[in-house]
């Protein structure tokens, strides 16, 4: 078998198809950047709306001298502000896998990114669900006392929070941890030969 001949024929294959328009690339790049900006804007606007709502509740509570409600309202404002910060930390540019890295390093970066996203979702109960539950339950009890209506409302909130936490862990396990495992397998497959000594010299 003449490998050099095969190689030459390989490189002489016609590549007339597959036109690439620079303008189309530029437009797609801009569209992707717009998507990212839009997502960030939605997260920020949601945080501001929730934050303003609880600020307003807090102001009313201050005027009424209901200091326990004020404390929980402040807690919920802080929570609303912290959510986009957590989300952006999970998508930190330092964790993005540079496509210009060597394949092995690129796979390692993608695995690290998948693990970071899995960890963020697994801890959603800590940074997303639990603070909201504490704030909402505290504010409801502070405002109404342990009435059946207040307890029912808190029960619904807790059920919703448990569902969100369960769903987050499920996504972390079935999507990100599984993806990280697949990447780890690829890394091991690729790296395994680096440990071995060649048994025969390759043909030139």
């Amino acid at each position, binding site marked *: 078998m003449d490998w050099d001949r095969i190689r030459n024929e390989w490189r002489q294959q016609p590549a007339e198809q597959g036109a690439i328009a620079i303008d189309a690339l530029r437009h797609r790049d801009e569209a992707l950047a717009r998507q990212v900006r839009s997502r960030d804007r939605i997260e920020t606007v949601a945080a501001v709306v929730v934050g303003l709502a609880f600020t307003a509740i807090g102001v009313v509570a201050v005027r009424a001298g209901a200091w326990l409600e004020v404390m929980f309202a402040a807690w919920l404002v802080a929570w609303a502000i912290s959510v986009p910060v957590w989300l952006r930390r999970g998508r930190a540019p330092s964790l993005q896998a540079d*496509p210009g890295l060597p394949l092995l390093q690129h796979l390692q970066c993608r695995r690290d990114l998948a693990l970071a996203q899995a960890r963020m979702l697994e801890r959603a109960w800590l940074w997303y669900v639990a603070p909201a539950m504490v704030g909402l339950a505290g504010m409801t009890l502070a405002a109404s006392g342990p009435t059946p209506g207040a307890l029912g409302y808190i029960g619904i909130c807790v059920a919703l929070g448990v569902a969100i936490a369960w769903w987050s862990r499920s996504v972390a396990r079935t999507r990100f941890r599984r993806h990280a495992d697949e990447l780890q397998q690829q890394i091991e497959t690729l790296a395994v030969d680096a440990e071995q000594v060649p048994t025969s010299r390759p043909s030139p």
Partner: protein
Amino acid sequence: MHTDPESGFPRMLEQSRPALVRLARRYAGVDDWQDLLQEMCLQLWRSFGSFDGRAQQSTWVYRVALNTALSHVRRPRPPHRPLEEIAERGDSGQPGDPLDVLDAFLAGLDPLARSVLLLDLEGLPREQIADVLGLTPNAVAIRMTRLRQAFETRFLED
């Protein structure tokens, strides 16, 4: 060294296009290789400004193309035709054409082994293949030896 996408990119892309087409066709199906090609070009476009010149430009292009291709193969796609079927009939209906046989062989390889063989077929020296993949030249040599032996055994000596 940061590179201005507006000036150097079209020239680099034109030089790289045949290789990108060949890679895209071996990592995507008949229906979606053009999508993969566009994805590779988009990644090159987005990263071109941050290319720092520490590696050869061709090395960098192959890295971006392969990293993009390996992300692409994770997405659902139609299954390959069985290797035996392709090997028996050949894609062009000309049994024995080395490129048809090679295509069938490549289709049966896992994406990582395919990348080693594809880079060799593109004419990259061992050291540059190692640089693209992040392996040692020794590891690349071992893989190439195995791949060539498998290729010869399975298709040419039958």
